[in-house]
Each structure stands twice: as C-alpha cells, then as structure tokens.
C-alpha cells in the first residue's frame, strides 16, 4: 500500500519538474543570450548597434543594421510573394479542384512542407541562382529597371546570388506551410453558410469574398504571421543564396546578409570575444523579433479563432 503511494507522489513530482523545465529552458535561453551579448551591448549600445551599418571584424567595429535590414526585407518580400500564391492554392483546393484531386494535392502540399529547408537552399544555389542570372535578371532590367527611382532597386549585374534570389527561395519554402494553414481555415467554414449563399444565387467568388474569407479571416492572418515567424528564423534556405555581404545593398539583386546568414557563416570563425558577443547580440535580436511576431500571431489572432 505504502509503496504505491510513494510511486504516485514521485510520478507527480517528476511530471511537474518536466513541466517547469519548459519555463526554465525559455527563461535560460533569454538570459544566456543576454549574458553572452552583454560585452557587445555595453560597447555599442542598443540604438547604435541597430542603426550602425559598419560590420568590420578586423577593426572590431560591429553594427547590426545590414543583417537586420536583410532579415526584414527578405522576410517581407517572401511573404508578399508567398501569401497570394498560397491563398490561390487554398481557394483551388477548397472550391475549384475536382473532388478526386483534393486529397492527393492537399497531402502533396503538406508533405512538401516537411522537406528539410536545406534542400531548398541547395536547389537555390545550383539551379535557381543561375536561372535568376540568365533568365530573370534581363527581364527585371527591362521592366522594373526602367521605372524611375524604383528602377535603382533592380539595377546591377550579379551572378544570381543576392537579396531577391534569397527572398524568392524563402517564399517557395514557406509556401506549402502557408497554403496548408489557409486551406485549413477555409475548411472550417460550415458548409451550411456556403450553401445558403449559393441558394441565393451567389457565384463561387461571391461565396469566397462574402462568406468564406470573412469567416476565415482571423485564422488566415494568424497563419500568415506564423509563416512570417518561420521566414524570420529560417537559415538554410537563404544561407546558400544570400551572398553574406555585410552591407545594405543599393539593389535587390546585389548580395546582402541577414541575421541567420551572418550567424551560420561567421559563428565558428569568430576569433575575438567582442566578435562572438556581437554575434550573440544578433541572435538575441532575432529571438526577440520572432518571439514578438509569434506571440502576436498566436495570442491576438489564433486565440480568437479557438473561441
């Protein structure tokens, strides 16, 4: 009798300890990153580090602006490309596609979301970068490049490695994930609502625009924010094709860098304490950025969906 109570008590305590571990790990993550980056925080300050564009390891001058710029710009471009396509795929899967195609195409999209991101990166390096150089760059020069002011963002000749290439590879990588979330949100719309609209003579687009999208809006926005979080922290899909140049490029076609690219390329080579500390500082900034994005996506939008 006594033994079984002891086992009962022990099990409860071990389970509690494992639960607390989750809190401890997250707290430690923040604390350790802060502690490791504090030499750099003290040397360069916060505002100064975020706005300084000088990243010069031999001179021990470190500014995070190029990496932060690259992270934000590549994420925004990737989202701008991926979201319309993903919603198109979701509309296709829920409303247009014949029934026998829905499951196989849907499963294919979900499986593509499971492919390791390094494979997207390798494909980008060996196939997409040359494609950008030979086929897309001339088209971009001939179209966007001709527009005044904006044209400068699309100038220059490069071997295909650069900010735009990385953004496109990133958008392809988050596409299946975003499409799957959008489709799931669309599928949550009760059939009876759609059927009532059809009974009133609505076309498929009317139903999408006035019934499905308003109903699924919060879920889709939450999903987009989660994709944003994913794109922010993605390393391997962009490392191969970003170029790792610690500058803010004049043109989207030029090589650039991002927080994850800088970390992946320079972390094991950092030879001074201040260098390593500045890299930890970048990791801390990335952690805080993704923490905020995810918290907003989860708690502002998806929480409302659950209710």
């Amino acid at each position, binding site marked *: 009798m006594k033994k079984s109570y002891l086992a009962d008590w022990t099990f409860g305590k071990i389970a509690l300890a494992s*639960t607390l571990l989750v809190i401890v790990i*997250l707290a430690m993550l923040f604390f350790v990153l802060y502690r490791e980056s504090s030499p750099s925080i003290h040397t360069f300050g916060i505002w100064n580090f975020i706005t300084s564009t000088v990243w010069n390891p031999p001179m021990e001058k470190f500014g995070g602006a190029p990496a932060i710029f690259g992270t934000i710009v590549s994420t925004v471009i990737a989202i701008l490309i991926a979201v319309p396509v993903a919603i198109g795929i979701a509309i296709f899967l829920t409303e247009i596609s014949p029934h026998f195609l829905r499951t196989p195409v849907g499963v294919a999209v979900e499986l593509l979301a499971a492919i390791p991101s390094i494979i997207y990166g390798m494909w980008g390096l060996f196939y997409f970068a040359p494609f950008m150089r030979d086929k897309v760059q001339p088209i971009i020069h001939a179209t966007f490049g001709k527009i005044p002011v904006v044209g400068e963002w699309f100038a220059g000749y490069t071997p295909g490695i650069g900010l735009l290439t990385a953004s496109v590879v990133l958008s392809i990588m988050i596409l299946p994930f975003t499409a799957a979330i959008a489709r799931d949100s669309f599928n949550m719309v009760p059939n009876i609502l759609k059927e009532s609209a059809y009974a009133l003579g609505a076309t*498929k687009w*009317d139903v999408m625009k006035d019934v499905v999208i308003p109903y699924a809006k919060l879920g889709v926005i939450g999903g987009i924010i989660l994709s944003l979080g*994913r794109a922010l922290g993605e*390393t*391997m899909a962009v490392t191969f094709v970003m170029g790792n140049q610690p500058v803010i490029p004049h043109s989207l076609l030029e090589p650039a860098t991002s927080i*994850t690219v800088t970390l992946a390329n320079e972390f094991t080579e950092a030879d001074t304490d201040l260098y390593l500390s500045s890299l930890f500082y970048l990791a801390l900034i990335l952690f805080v950025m993704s923490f905020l994005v995810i918290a907003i996506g989860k708690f502002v939008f998806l929480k409302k969906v659950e209710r």
Partner: protein
Amino acid sequence: MDAFTRRKIVNNIILVLSTVAALFGIMWLFWILGTLLYKGFSMLSLEIFMGDPPSPGEETGGLKHAIVGQTLIVLTATVIGIPLGILAGTYIAEYGKNSRLANIVRDLSDIMMSVPSIVIGTFIYAILVKPVGHFMGIAGSLSLAIMMIPIILRTTDDMLRLVPPELREAGYALGATKFKVIKDIVYRAAITGILTGVILSVARIGGETAPLLFTSFNNNFFTFDMTQPMASLTVTMYDYAMSPYEYWQKLAWAAAIILTAGVLGANILGRVMAYWKFRK
C-alpha cells in the same frame, strides 16, 4: 452589361487566377522535388552507404560517417526529448488541466516551437560547447531535443484530453492511485496518438541543419563517440554543397535524398497512424 453578367465574368477571372496561382506554386515545388530525385537517385549506390568520406579531388567515397552520425544524434535527441515531453504533457493534461501554470506552459511551448532553430544552436554553444572547449555530438542532440519537447508536449496534452473521464473514474472507483490510472488506463487509451506525435516530432527535427552547425559541427571521420565533433547528413550537405569539388557536390545530393527519404518516411508513417486512429 448587367450585374449578373459582370458577376459571372469576375467569378471566372478569379477562378482562373487561383488556378494559375496554384499551378505556379506547385510548379516550383515540383521543380525542386524533380531536381532532388534526379540528382539524388543517380548517385545512390552501395558505395554511398558503406564508403568512408572522400579526400579532396578523389572520385570515390561515401557517407557512412554522416549517416551513422545523423542516426546517433537524432536517436539521442529522441531519448532525451520523449520522456520529458510526455511527462510534461501528462502533467498539464492530468494534473494541471486548466490551472494557470498549465495554460502558461501551453502558450510558452507554442512559442518555444517557433524559436528560430539557429538561436537554439547558439544557446547550446554558450552553455555546453564553450565551457567544455570543443564541439560534440551530444550538444547537437540536446539542441534537437529542445526543439522536440514542445511538440511532444502539445500532442500528448491533446491526446490525453481526448481520453473520456469515465475511464479514469472507473479506475479510481476500483481504488487505483492517480499514477496507476495514468499508467494503466490513460496511456493505454492514448498510446497511438502519443506515438504519432513522437514520430512527427522526429520528422520535424530530423532535417534540421542550423542547430547542429555550432554544436555537433562536423567530423571527417567515422566515430561513435558523442563527446567529440560528429558528422551529420545535414551539416555534411552544407559543407559539401559549398565545396569546389564536383564529386563532393554530388555526394551532397545523395545525402539530400537519403535525408528526405528518412524525414518523409517518418512523416508519412505518423500520418498513416493518425489516420488509423481517427478514421471513424
């Protein structure tokens, strides 16, 4: 043009646009998949699985060291992550229920699931690799385990809460302790679901590269020693793809297809199990 015709035209334009978007998106994905299959399959041979790593410039050699390393790192991560994830999930489903602690942990683990994997790599570097002074396989396992815990925690929580309370009450009525009820009734009822979560979490972390870059690093030799730097398929792919040697780049594609087969295999297995459990 009357309103009816206009609506029909707008409808058709939108439907065509979505179909084009779908085809456009799917085209890229098939391009990538096609490349992977074409480049990967042409390289597969016994040499790839059994051969030692190649020297620069040589045209022979395989990935035995990376395959074994990858397996060891992922297995160790699983051994660390499964018990912690299941225990924590059990606590919040069976003990915490809707208490404040349980809800906080649910939210925090959702956030932990989305922490950039490279940040977890830098964290383990700071607490383990830097104090010890060199890279090691076990550090890679630890960072993968940190990624696994929240996934297993959440699925365990969801699966246990699906078990009907009447089953537990029947156990208590017979005089069983809480531990006995959980072990002999709740776990048995939910085992398929928990296992599905475990398999999907392995599929999720199996293809991660970024957390291994600064933890298990890479090793050009075959080793079982987890306290030393250890090769993995993913980091090997990264290094070989960036190398100037053509044969190494080919090996990277071979590693890519082996890795994808493993990750997708685990993913499909998990999905089939979930389908079997919930097909009713």
